[in-house]
């Protein structure tokens, strides 16, 4: 029997506003426990929330970038639940009138082509604190630093049908959020978190199967594995005549399996009601228009432009436009070296290799954005060899050296004095009579060895063509 899988996502993203959603505390990640707190975000009796206007603006920006309709009469609601990381014992959220509704994000479908993943809603809410389990002391401590950090919850419709589609959706979404500057989307710091709602059904069936929810999976790879694992588990259940239970499950990525946390019957009654401490917020047409006009070029549009105007291959533009950090580097590099193609090639080739080798994410690149462009300029002007260029870029990547200065200080410039080059090559020829003999007896390959030796003697500072040319002059 063939099955199909139906997946919807709830994505939480922490907004990168300077201050928290209801008070003036910093949203900065980390910090000594309970140092980014005040009486408001720690829920002291008598305190009141005042909505940070930037949060509203960021939410509108996100809605517009994901083709949503903006709710112009907004309210907040209280979601009541008791947990040690929630000092007020309720979370201020939006249930009845979320700020954005009915949008979509376009992704690559598994079956080829494009498809739209519909966004049901985006709402604003406050983050909770963090529990820190101290095994050594056998106790649990609570850190309120994260309390009140603004969150958007982006709820999709169940429009995805494979792990690949989910990953593509998340990558597209992440790129959009980074482009419009509302979140840094660092999964490892929890500023992008996804809950996966998944069900399976027989291919062609009209009704959805019973779904489970997997919470807070914290990397794209883990999400992919969790989806594959859960799909298999549900199909196995159905195949053996059992039923899928509607429940929340926790994915244990190290064991590669999920286990039940709580079933629907134990589901909490959040006793939502309108938040009385925050008056309704009205958003004018002008405000929406103003935010819309200030939106930057979004990934899909940028990709099209790169392909059309710069004649870059679709694959490359896809990779580059998926990350605002690669885009920034690309655009700056192209600007400096005047050649988008070169910029793209270096990013797709050398940079990707280094990111991969060092397991670095584009957002964690630390080097000056001008450096790659400067290297390409030196290369194109024949001031350095390709080999040198690669080596300098490695240094730039790992130590953020200034390329021009580095080249100069380490005498890496290409030798322009043909006489001097010739002198060195002549010495190589004199030192390797055997190879010269072989070449002269018709073994063409022997010249490769001589080129190599010459390059070594020249420390790579002469162009290979030049060396080859001089060798031929000497030997032929």
């Amino acid at each position, binding site marked *: 029997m063939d099955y199909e899988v139906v997946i919807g996502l709830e994505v939480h993203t922490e907004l990168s506003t300077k201050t928290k959603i209801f008070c003036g505390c910093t949203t900065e990640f980390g910090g000594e426990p309970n140092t980014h707190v005040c009486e408001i975000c720690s829920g002291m009796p*008598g305190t009141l929330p005042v*909505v940070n206007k930037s949060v509203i603006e960021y939410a509108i920006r996100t809605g517009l970038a994901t083709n949503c309709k903006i709710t112009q009469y907004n309210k907040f609601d209280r979601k009541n639940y008791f947990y040690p990381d929630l000092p007020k014992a309720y979370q201020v959220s939006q249930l009845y009138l979320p700020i954005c509704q009915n949008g979509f994000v376009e992704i690559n479908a598994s079956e080829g082509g494009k498809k739209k993943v519909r966004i049901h809603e985006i709402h604003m809410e406050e983050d909770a604190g963090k529990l820190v389990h101290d095994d050594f002391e056998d106790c649990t401590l609570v850190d309120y630093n994260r309390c009140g950090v603004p969150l958007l919850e982006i709820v999709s419709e169940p429009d995805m049908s494979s792990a690949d589609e989910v990953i593509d959706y998340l990558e597209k979404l992440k790129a959009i959020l980074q482009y419009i500057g509302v979140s840094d989307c660092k999964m490892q710091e929890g500023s992008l978190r996804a809950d996966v709602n998944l069900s399976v059904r027989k291919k062609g069936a009209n009704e959805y199967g019973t779904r489970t929810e997997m919470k807070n999976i914290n990397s794209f790879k883990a999400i992919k594995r969790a989806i594959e694992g859960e799909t298999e588990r549900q199909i196995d259940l159905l195949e053996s005549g059992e039923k899928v239970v509607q429940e929340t499950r926790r994915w244990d990525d190290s064991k590669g399996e999920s286990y039940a946390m709580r079933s629907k019957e134990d589901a909490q009654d959040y006793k939502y009601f309108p938040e009385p401490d925050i008056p309704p917020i009205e958003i004018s047409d002008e405000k929406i228009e103003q935010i819309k006009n200030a939106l930057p070029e979004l990934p899909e549009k940028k990709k099209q432009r790169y392909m059309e105007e710069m004649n870059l291959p679709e694959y490359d533009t896809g990779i580059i436009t998926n990350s605002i950090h690669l885009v920034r580097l690309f655009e700056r590099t192209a600007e400096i070296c005047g050649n988008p193609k070169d910029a793209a090639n270096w990013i797709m080739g050398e940079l990707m290799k280094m990111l991969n080798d060092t397991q670095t994410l584009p957002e964690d690149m630390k080097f000056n954005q001008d450096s790659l462009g400067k290297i390409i300029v030196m290369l194109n002007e024949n001031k350095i060899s390709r080999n040198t260029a690669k080596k300098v870029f490695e240094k730039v990547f790992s130590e953020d050296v200034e390329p021009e200065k580095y080249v100069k200080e380490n005498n890496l410039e290409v030798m322009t004095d043909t006489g001097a080059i010739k002198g060195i090559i002549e010495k190589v020829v004199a030192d390797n009579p055997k190879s010269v003999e072989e070449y002269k007896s018709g073994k063409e390959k022997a010249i490769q060895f001589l080129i190599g030796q010459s390059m070594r003697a020249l420390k790579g500072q002469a162009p290979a063509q030049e060396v080859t040319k001089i060798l031929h002059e000497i030997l032929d």
Partner: protein
Amino acid sequence: MEILKMTALELSKAIKSKEITVRQATQAVLDAIADYDGTYNCYTCVCEKEALERADEVQKLIDEGKLDASPLAGVPIAVKDNICTKGITTTCSSKILSNFKPTYNATVVERLNEAGMVIVGKLNMDEFAMGSTTETSYFGATKNPWNIECVPGGSSGGAAASVAADEAIIALGSDTGGSIRQPCSFCGVTGLKPTYGSVSRYGLVAYASSLDQIGPIGKDVADCAAMYSIISGRDEKDGTSMDFEKFDYTEVLKGEVKGKKIGIPSDYFGEGIAKDVKKKVLAAAEKLKEMGAEIEEFDMPIVKYAIPAYYIIASAEACSNLSRYDGIKYGYKSESARNLRETYIKSRSEGFGMEVKRRIMLGNFVLSSGYYDAYYKKALQAKKLIQQSFFDAFEKYDMLLGPVAPTTALKLGESLSDPLKMYLGDIYTVMINIAGLPAVSVPCGFDSNNMPVGLQLIGKPFDEKTIMQVAYQYEKATDFSDKKPNLIKA
């Protein structure tokens, strides 16, 4: 003139003209507390040391001429114990907050500090402002200065009684469903429940956030008006506080009754109202008519929905507001708890009193899925209708007039056994909170047992001025506010 007999405005004047020092005024109040609070139990905490130090500081500012603009500079004040005072216990008269010292001042406290007032102590109340008698306090009931066998009303019972017993010159209370007006009525003093959004709630420990409002309790209308001018005005820290024209209390003293259109909701005099109360309130209406007001009765049938709507909305918000008290972060922690779960359960079971528990359960019930539509949603609909009927009434009238409560002060213990009866006593006050309107309570006579009766004037939103003008003229034309109980030393 004896300090304790002065109004707050008179006292500030005497201080500014160097007849009295701030320390003398403060000491006089502290002495009165020492002499009488054993009888009346108005205070949960007296901060003698801080008050005297502060008195000297204020004196210096007055001497330097820095407080000339403040009408109440140098006046000692007492504050209801649900208003946060930095470093001074703020208990809400609950065991669960019995050791809670806030790290910050409520906005109103900041404002009265800026105005050069001196906080002498914190006032007893019904636990978390839930109750109409001040009997639900963890620190014991406050006694009515007119008859110590009677309740002072509530929940700001400590505030009203302290002013009536001359243990305070002026006080701050809070009103969620009548908690300023009703104890003022029971104790024969004057109080203002301001328009929702006119006084910052920042630092007022929440009972029902959409209804709570801080207001003054004083010896007369002018004092309340002066106090209101100090505490009112938009606060950046309270999103529900509103921008409006700065209130000038001297305007209140210049008004006239003549030509004012006053509506009397006939439904305010229906079943359940005590004969004496009805008589005195109608006599007050008659008096205002003599003074030139146009008085007219009209029907307001929505009154019958007021109590259920109020208790649903207030309890719903209360259960959410009070769920943060867990015995961990601050406040009372059960000593017999052996683990985290027990700490939560026991701290709350032992820390909250019966009335608070009743409202927490009621609130959770009306919000729970399956019941929300039948209760909470209906209550919100009733709220809309109540607002609409006031809106309609104010098309015709400048203000409305009625009793504050259906009875005068009840005997201690009478209400505790019958909470439903106590709830019904709020019938004339809760609607005003639901509609967010201002209302003033002024003495209008005494019943056959010589217990005070209060008159309620209800105004349009942010029109405190008009109701206080009429209340001021009424007060001048009568002598009910001048009457004092015979006090009993402890």
